[in-house]
């Protein structure tokens, strides 16, 4: 089965670049902003991994993750943010919702590796439930 990856960011440049870079290696969807992301999650498609920007209008990345996790507890969420030391700024009780914190600029090889591991984690989590 394909493990789909959802990229959520308010910067179209980022989304287009990621799509261009990983479009042939990952089964991915892009969402411009959290509202669109939630709409995709509600659209029936299941996602294994979500790569989420932190600073976004309407709601920030953590709020989006909380809502997404509520929809699909097995969704593995990776934060990719331009904010320095982001992990320390997130409340400890919310950190467990996040599989990995990555800072922009993040080398694409590392991002890809994290996404792969998150996909494996997702496999384990869903298998355990099954």
């Amino acid at each position, binding site marked *: 089965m394909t493990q789909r990856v959802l990229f959520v960011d*308010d*910067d179209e*440049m*980022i989304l*287009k*670049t*990621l799509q*261009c*870079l990983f*479009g*042939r290696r990952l089964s991915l969807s892009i969402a411009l902003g959290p509202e669109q992301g939630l709409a995709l999650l509600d659209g029936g498609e299941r996602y294994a991994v979500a790569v989420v920007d932190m*600073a*976004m*209008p*309407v*709601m920030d990345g953590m709020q989006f993750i909380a809502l997404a996790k509520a929809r699909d507890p097995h969704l593995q969420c990776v934060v*990719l*943010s*331009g*904010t*320095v030391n982001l992990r320390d700024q997130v409340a400890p009780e919310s950190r467990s919702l996040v599989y990995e914190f990555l*800072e*922009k*600029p*993040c*080398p*694409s090889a590392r991002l890809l590796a994290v996404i792969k591991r998150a996909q494996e984690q997702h496999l384990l989590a869903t298998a355990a439930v099954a």
Partner: protein
Amino acid sequence: MTLRRKALLSVLVTMIGLLTILYLVSKVILVDSAVRMETADVQAQVGKVRDYLSGEIVFLRVQASNWATWDDTVSFLAGHNPNYLDANFSCQAFEGLDLDFLVILDSQDQLGASRACDRQTYKLLPVDANFLDVLLKDSALHYDKLPTDGLAGILLTSSGPVLLAAQPIVPSSAQGPARGTLIFGRRLSSDEIHSIGKATGVDVQAFAKGDPQMPADMQSESSRVSPGGAAAVAAVGTDQIAGYQWVPDVHNQPGLLLRVTSADAVLAESQRTLRSLILAILLAGPLFGTLILVLLERLVLAPLAGLSASVAGIARTGSPSERVRMAGHDELASLGSSINAMLAALERSHEDVRRAYRQNQQLLAAISSILIAVDEADCVTLWNEIAEKTFGMTPGETIGRALVDCGIRWDRAAIEAQIQKCRSQEQPVLLRGFFYQRPGGRDGLLNLDFSTFQGQDSAGSGILILGDDITQQSILEAQLAAAQKLQAIGQLAAGIAHEINTPAQYVGDNMLFLQQAFADLQPLLEADQMVCDGQDGLCPSNLAECVRGAIDPSDLSYYLQEVPGAVDRALEGINRVTQIVRAMREFSHPGSKSKAPADLNRAIASTITVARNEYKHVADVTTDFDANLPPVTCLAGEVNQVVLNLLVNAAHAIADATSNGKTGKGTIAVSTRRDGSFVEIRVADTGSGIPEEIRSRVFDPFFTTKEPGKGTGQGLSLAHSVIVEQHSGTIHFETQMGVGTTFIVRLPLEGA
């Protein structure tokens, strides 16, 4: 003159007046009444003598009448009785009748008979010829003039005054005319007068009118005495009094002047009494005067002097807490208690003044500012402890000296000019950030407020200088401003990092993609190169096969589709980074410490770029810049800081109003306009507005509505200080609840 002397003088004057009045009254009452009594007495004595004389005259007349109507006398005159004289008028008969002579005249007034008797020698004598001559010539005695009841009285002759009685001689039958005249006479010799005095018990003297032997006093009094009036009375010598009166003669003319003398006993007695009285008064006067003085002294003067000394003592010590000691219930005691009440009131007001003075001193001591007062001649009159500490000079060194000459190292001309300005404008003058040299030699900064105050006289106004050494404060302010700037930059740095990291991410990713694309395309490009070089023979099979094998066709179409976008994105990312870095440089204006002409539109645009991360999620920024805005002379870095603060505040206000953008983005409208010699910058947000109750505190330092850690409360306070104090501009806001707030900054074009 002391009260005692006045009292003594009063008593003396009263005593002298009293004695004089007593003396005068006594004299009038005693002496005058005595004189009146004596006058009456002397007049009575004179009357007594006159009565006696009248009695003698009547006696003589009765005798003469008896003899004149005796028939023997008639017959004698008719010549029938020759023995008549001898038989009837012997010396014994003269003695018995108390006569000195007798004269009988016939009807022709011829001498019928005459006889006299010297009653000392008892010898009969002829009548004195002179006397006879007077008698015969006196017409009043003439037969035809003589009244029928005869005539009696005093007759003056050259031989002295005589008493005589003349009776017409008629028979006892009283028939027929008078036959002649019978005259009885008695000499009024001094002996006779003396015997009258004896008989009447009166010391009397009598002298005929014109008698050369009359004493001088009688001669002088004779003119004063009226013949018919009362006796005149006069003092004779020192102890006698005399009464004078004329006794008329037979012709009813002043004949005999009587003088009755009497011892002046009553007068002397009254004068003695008066003397005794005066003596008594003279003795009693000083006694009573002394007594009055002693009583006055004991009862009034001594307590008064005590009161006076007590009050003088209080006046000398000047202490109103002392009290006058008073005993008794008289007016002095009530005066004393009134003085005590006054002293109590004085003490209270003194205490009030002291308290006010203490408060004043405490107030002055509590003032933690420099406090210097100069008088109208600019001489120092007040120099407080802070001034002493600040300038290193004691009040002793400065008070009384001219302020500019007391040795402070500062711009004397500027101080003089400020004082002059304050005095001429009569309103406070402020001097901010004024340099002076501290006692240690280092530079210091002062804030000085000059204000006028009215001196003790109206000669001119003094100046009160209230000042603070703001050196430390200025350093702290500068440090605080720097810290705020650092904090703002720190806060911005995170946003800017974010703004740079995002393009860096996709610039890198796109470059990576391009690198992969190039790597995948490289065999194709090498094949192409071989074709171009004419080495297509090297190709293992035909060229088409060679090119087709160089790359997966699906990859090629992918790259053809994606590479141009990737290149664009990489360039766009680099562009963004460049833009941000340039904006940062323009925003911070490093090294611009003095005012310089600046393009405010560009500066504001840079600031908006730098601050993008602060607002981009909650608001869109619209700009409306005046394209013809001239350069503004300002500290561009500082003004940018102010605009940044306004942008961040606007973003926060919108975030609060839109729940961090959940209910839609707001708008921040930034505009610039030229308004005369000013430039106006408006930053308007669509936030919720500033509540009425905190509007007045918006520019207060450390005032913030943000939760702890989110804001220092320094932003608008520093903005105020930058615009108002450094640029002489203004900053204010217009706000409407639920609509938004617009901050308006006005800067002078030419700076200040």
